[in-house]
């Protein structure tokens, strides 16, 4: 029993001491990275936009969900620009000009993004067609 306890103490110590290798900034977060805007309407606009901007570091998350420094800085930038009265659509276009359509979770309908929009409809149509055929076959 005591040996087992020693092992678990050693394990906890190892985990506590295992700090990740120096690979992140020690800089304090930007002013509006984790702080909401005082104006609730502006904050709601900012949150809507931040929820559809993809984090460029952890590429499966939106910047609102990401803990990456760059995502925090992007949140602060978006909130500050909205506070100054800039339109969310303009900020989104500004980011797309730099990172590509990829950076938005709400890509505009264009030639290269058409499959994204049309394929679900096509698949739904296929599903209905298959189902209809199957139901008819059952009835007969």
């Amino acid at each position, binding site marked *: 029993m005591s040996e087992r306890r020693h092992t678990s103490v050693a394990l906890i110590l190892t985990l506590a001491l295992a700090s990740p*290798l*120096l*690979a*992140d*900034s*020690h*800089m304090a977060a*930007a002013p509006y990275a984790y702080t909401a805007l005082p104006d609730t309407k502006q904050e709601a606009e900012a949150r809507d936009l931040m929820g559809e901007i993809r984090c*460029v*570091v952890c*590429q499966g998350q939106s910047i609102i969900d990401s803990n990456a*420094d*760059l995502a925090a*800085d*992007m949140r*602060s*930038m978006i909130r500050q620009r909205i506070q100054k009265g800039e339109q969310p659509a303009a900020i989104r276009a500004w*980011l*797309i*000009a*730099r*990172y*590509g359509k*990829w950076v938005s979770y709400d890509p505009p309908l264009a030639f290269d993004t058409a499959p994204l929009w049309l394929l679900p409809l096509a698949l739904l149509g296929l599903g209905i067609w298959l189902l209809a055929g199957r139901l008819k076959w059952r009835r007969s």
Partner: protein
Amino acid sequence: MKSFWRWLPLILFGLLAGLVTRALIFPTPRDIPSKWVGHPMPGFDLPAAAASRPGLAIRDLANGKPKLVNIFASWCIPCAAEAPVLRRMTLEGVEVDGIALRDQRADLDRFLARYGNPYRAIGGDVSSSVAIALGSTGVPETYVVDGKGIIRKQYIGQLTDADVPAVIEALRASQ
């Protein structure tokens, strides 16, 4: 014909499974190249980030001479490995300007003393504002900027000795 329709779902499933397997074995590259290449450097005026070098502003870049702008940080490990490569390029007459991302002066001074200082000037980008305006996704990144301040090329990640001839050629082409 009837047997074809019977096998169609399995064939479709096989195609889908093939796609997924391929994506697992050969993941799409995670590098996101900047769409801002070909555009002018963003207007910026960054304060000095290190004790021994001046800050960096847009007017330093559009001065007729092509140069490299390297985004780096003292907390970035590949940047330490990249420092000697940048040094070697300065010996060939290349001007390297630095943008230190989210860095503190004491950390940066220690980094430069330890790994060498190839930079003519180093601006401190504490809130990543210039990095975001460049479409940058991390450190290190190196931009070839021509004499008019237009970005000609972006290198994502650490430059190695093998990249030196190509980088120098890209600078010559931006003359």
